[in-house]
Every structure is written in structure tokens, then in C-alpha cells.
């Protein structure tokens, strides 16, 4: 950890002590150059994906920018493949996961933040430990369980699976967030004759909106991008989610990069929109969870 200090020393190597927001000209250039390089590395792949999606399929690997601008990849993906079905599957699964996940993460977070009850410490540990469960240990038994319940190839099966991935982390985050809301607010609710559920629902939850946004964002992104369970539990072209569907464009048998890029762009847009909506709350929400965690 100490080694990383070089970045700051480099900007102030002059013997005179500089304050935080002053720096020499070379230091300033160095700073901007580093940040610009990092920004290019961060932005280039998604940008290149976008650019490629507008090229004719035969040009997918041309190095230049778009010479023959076309929507052919998009129309092909939308009209001639099962893409819209996959999209619908993903929206249903991710939507349900997000709504349910945020709700139960919030109630759990609130309970562990406000009440001292028997079983609380084990529960906190459980939530922490669940986060490190490898897919590998659960996937086969879960597959068998879902098979025996008739939930393979059913959205409901993936929804409950995703809840177990997202909720433990979200509950911790919500706990951190509720900890920052003064207890006096709960007490005022109780004085006004609200029961704990009423206090939670009418007073505390509205105040916790940024925390809810982050939790929802996290759940959405996790579920939208999950690959392992989706690949194992959903089979048959009409049951695939987007993560599974995208694999059908580029695999050992086919190499349809044009369709892949167009589909990828359509998939990335909703995620980016949710991200844009939540990113304002991201720093506060995440650190509330992590610093207090």
C-alpha cells in the first residue's frame, strides 16, 4: 500500500513543500497525461464496440472508423434472431429480482440496524459468508433442486437464485445506510403511534432513497450480467437470457461478430441508463456500506 505513494510524491518533488492543490507545471502535465491515458483505456473498448456495430458485417474487423454506416446489424439482430425473446426474458427476471431484492434487503437491513434481537449476530455472519459462496459448490445441487421443483427454464428459478447473490451484499449496504439515519426519526414515529412497520415504511424508507437506488442498481447490474447460472439453468433458444443468447453469436461454431456487437450495444444501453441514474448516489451509498461494514 505504501508504494503507491509515489504518485503523490512525484507531483511534488520540489524541495519546497507544496499544499494539496498547488503543483508545478510538469506535475500538472503528468497528472493529466496519466488520467487521460487511463480514461482512454477505460473508454476505448465500449466505444470500439459501438463503432463496430455500425459497420457492415464483413467489415467487423476493419481498423478504421465507420466507412459504410449501416443499421444492418441491428435490423438483423432484431428481426431474424430470438434476441427480443431473450431481452424479454432478461427484463422479467431482472425486474423481479430488483424489486424483490431491494425490498427484502431493506427490511433486513433495517431490522439489523435498529433492533437487537436474538439471532442477529449469526444472521450478519450468514450474510457475510454467503457473499463468498462459490458458484461451483452450489450450482449442481441447485440445478437438481430446481429440476425437482420444475423450475428449470423458468424465470422464477433464476429470480430466487439471483436474490441469494444480490441480497446479502445489499442488506449490508442498507444496514450501513440506515445507520446514518438518526434514531430520533424512528422515535418520533413511535410517539405518533406508528408501529415499527409503519415507521419503517412511511418515515425511514423515504429517507433512505439514495441507499435504495444503490441497492437497486447493484441488484440490477448483478442480475443483468450474470452468466454461470443463466448458462446452466436456461436451455433451449426461447428460454435464454441475454447473457446466454449472446454466446450463441460467437462460439466454436459461428463467428457472427456483427450481430454480436449490435446485440451487445442494445444490452448495454439499459444498464448504462440505470447506471447514470444511480451513479450520483454511488459514492455515498457504497461507502456507507463499506466503511461501516
Amino acid at each position, binding site marked *: *500500500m505504501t508504494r*503507491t*505513494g509515489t504518485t*503523490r*510524491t512525484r*507531483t511534488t518533488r520540489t524541495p519546497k*513543500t507544496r*499544499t*494539496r492543490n498547488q503543483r508545478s507545471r510538469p506535475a500538472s502535465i503528468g*497528472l*493529466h497525461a496519466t*488520467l487521460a491515458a*487511463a*480514461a482512454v483505456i*477505460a*473508454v476505448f473498448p*465500449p466505444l*470500439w*464496440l459501438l463503432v463496430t456495430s455500425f459497420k457492415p458485417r464483413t467489415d467487423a*474487423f476493419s*481498423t478504421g472508423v465507420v466507412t459504410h454506416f449501416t443499421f444492418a446489424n441491428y435490423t438483423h439482430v432484431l428481426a431474424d434472431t430470438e434476441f427480443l425473446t431473450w431481452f424479454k426474458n432478461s427484463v422479467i427476471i431482472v425486474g423481479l429480482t430488483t424489486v424483490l431484492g431491494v425490498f*427484502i434487503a431493506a*427490511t433486513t437491513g*433495517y*431490522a439489523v440496524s435498529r*433492533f437487537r*434481537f436474538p439471532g442477529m449476530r449469526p*444472521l450478519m455472519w*450468514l450474510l457475510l459468508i*454467503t*457473499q*463468498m*459462496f*462459490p*458458484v461451483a*459448490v*452450489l450450482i*449442481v*445441487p*441447485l440445478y437438481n*433442486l430446481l429440476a425437482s421443483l420444475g423450475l428449470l427454464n423458468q424465470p422464477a428459478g433464476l429470480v*430466487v437464485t439471483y*436474490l*441469494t447473490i444480490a441480497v446479502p451484499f445489499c442488506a449490508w449496504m442498507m444496514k450501513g445506510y440506515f445507520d446514518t439515519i438518526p434514531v430520533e426519526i424512528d422515535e418520533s414515529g413511535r410517539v405518533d403511534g406508528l408501529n415499527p412497520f409503519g415507521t419503517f415504511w412511511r418515515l425511514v424508507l423515504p429517507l433512505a432513497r439514495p441507499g435504495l437506488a444503490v441497492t437497486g442498481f447493484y441488484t440490477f447490474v448483478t442480475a443483468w*450480467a450474470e*452468466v*454461470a447460472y443463466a*448458462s446452466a439453468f436456461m436451455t433451449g433458444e426461447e428460454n435464454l437470457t441475454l*447473457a446466454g443468447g449472446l*454466446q450463441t453469436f*460467437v462460439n466454436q461454431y459461428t463467428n457472427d461478430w456483427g450481430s454480436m456487437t449490435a446485440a*451487445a450495444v442494445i444490452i*448495454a444501453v439499459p444498464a*448504462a441508463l440505470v*447506471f*447514470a441514474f444511480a451513479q450520483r448516489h454511488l*459514492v455515498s451509498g*457504497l*461507502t456507507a456500506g*463499506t466503511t461501516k461494514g
Partner: protein
Amino acid sequence: MTVAVRVRRALGTHWYAWTMVAPVVLVIGVIIGYPLVRGVFLSLTDANEANVQRDIGVNHIPATYKFTGLDNYQAVLSDSVFWDRLGWTVLWTVGCVSITFLAGLTLANMLNRTLRGRTFYRLALILPWAVPAFISVFTWRMLYNEKNGILNKLLAGGGIDAIPWLNDPTWAKLSVIAVNVWLGVPFMLVALLGGLQSIPGELYEAAEMDGASAWQRFRHITVPGLRAVSSTVILLSAIWTFNMFPVIFLLTRGGPGDATEILVTYAYRLSFVDSPRNFSESATWGVLILVLLSIVAVVYRRALRKQGEVW
């Protein structure tokens, strides 16, 4: 006081809390508790595709696998495949987490100061997080493409021979680490930036008054101030990386050969890719992975506590 009375009194006081946590406990119990117990059980049997209970048409074939005790564990642990995969998994985890953390810390420190274009840099640097990971991985596969990918074309422009990014064991390892770092930096950056911003500015001002150099300020204010956030994000990130399935599965499918196969993807391969599907060995790998992670978490937590960390 009888037990019944005590239970009733506990219910009276705590039923709100219990009701609120019930859904989570229920979901975790059914979806994780049961499969976990079942997974441990499977690891003690010789179950595979050919002998588990299954239905073919209308015929119901009962399970015929047997309980074999610790045979699977003995077999896996005495096999060099497991140790090879473990070695690479550790290298992968340590490599990814340390590079990601250093990059995140460097960039967070750079962004945590008055700077023209700060918002722009911040948004650009967080972008990899906004794109779903599997999309990014596919994009990287396109960039890495040996014959036609843009990376090799750029190299060719500079007169450098094409690099087999994903087809050579060593390059493939570097490539998957690079992609995972690319994916992981935004989370580190955001978390550490939050940590930096929660350090009171007065501390820095006071230090400047006393003539502390930039390095001294970093060493004695920033580092201690970031310790809580750092320890949490490093642990989380280590666990996530250790279990990072999509990057490897989608980028190389564990190849070439099994060069980039980490423990999790190898266990998946045993039960869903290889034929016949070997459920018991896969479960054994799963249990071993879980044991390893638990040990790491406990050791890490103890080390933190020794430093006086409350977490």
C-alpha cells in the same frame, strides 16, 4: 419461568425484527442452505450423470450412486490438476487484486483534488462498470482476436508480430488478468474516492501548517484514513476475483488447454461441460473452494483485528 413463557415473551419483543428478516433467512435457507448440505453430501458419493436419479421419457430411473466417504477428497488432493489450478488461481487472485487496488488508489488520489476536467475523468473511468461484464468480455475477445483484432493490427502498424493473446498459455493468462483489472478498477476507484473524501480536509491543512511533505501527508493521514475502506474492498475484491466465473469462462473457456482454468471454472466444467458430467468430483472441488475461502477470510480478519481494526 417456563420455557414456553420465555419463548412467548421473546416473540412479543422481537417479532417485528424476526418478521423483517424472515424473507432473507427463508431464501438463503432454501437456495443456499439446502444445496450446500446436498453439495457436501454429493462430494461424499460417486454420483455422475450415469447414476443419478433421472427420468427418460416415462421411465423413472432411481439413483444408484454409492456413498464413498472421503475417497473423492483423497483423489482430488493427490491429483496434480487440483494443485496446478490452485496455484494459478492464487496467482490470478493476488495479481488481479493488487494491480486493481494500486491502480484504483493511484487514480483516486489523482481525482481527489481540484483538477480541470475532473468530472469528465471520473465518468470515463467509471464507464467499464456501467457496461455489463459479459458485454465487456465479448468486446475484449474481439479486440484480442489474433488474426483480425485491433490490438494486433495496431502492433502490425508498428511492425510488431501478432501476439497470440488468447491462444498461448502465458499470453492468455496475462490477457485474462488485464481484462479483470479493467473491469475491477472502477469499483476500487469509487470506494477509495469515497474513503478519501471522508477524511477531513482540516487534517491536511493542519499538516501543511506544520510543514509536512506530500509524502508524509499521504503516509500519516491518507493511509490510516483509508484503512477501513481498503480492508473491506480488498477482502471483497479478493473473494470476487477468486470466484470470478464470467471473465475466464467467456474469454478463454479455460483454454488454451486448461491454462487459464481457475478452480471455479474447472468445477463448472466437471459438472456441465465434460461428458459424462461428474457431479461428485465437481461438488468436491466446490467444497474445497469454500474451505479455502473460509480460511482466507478468517486469517485476514484476525490479521486486521491484531492491527486494532474493529471490523
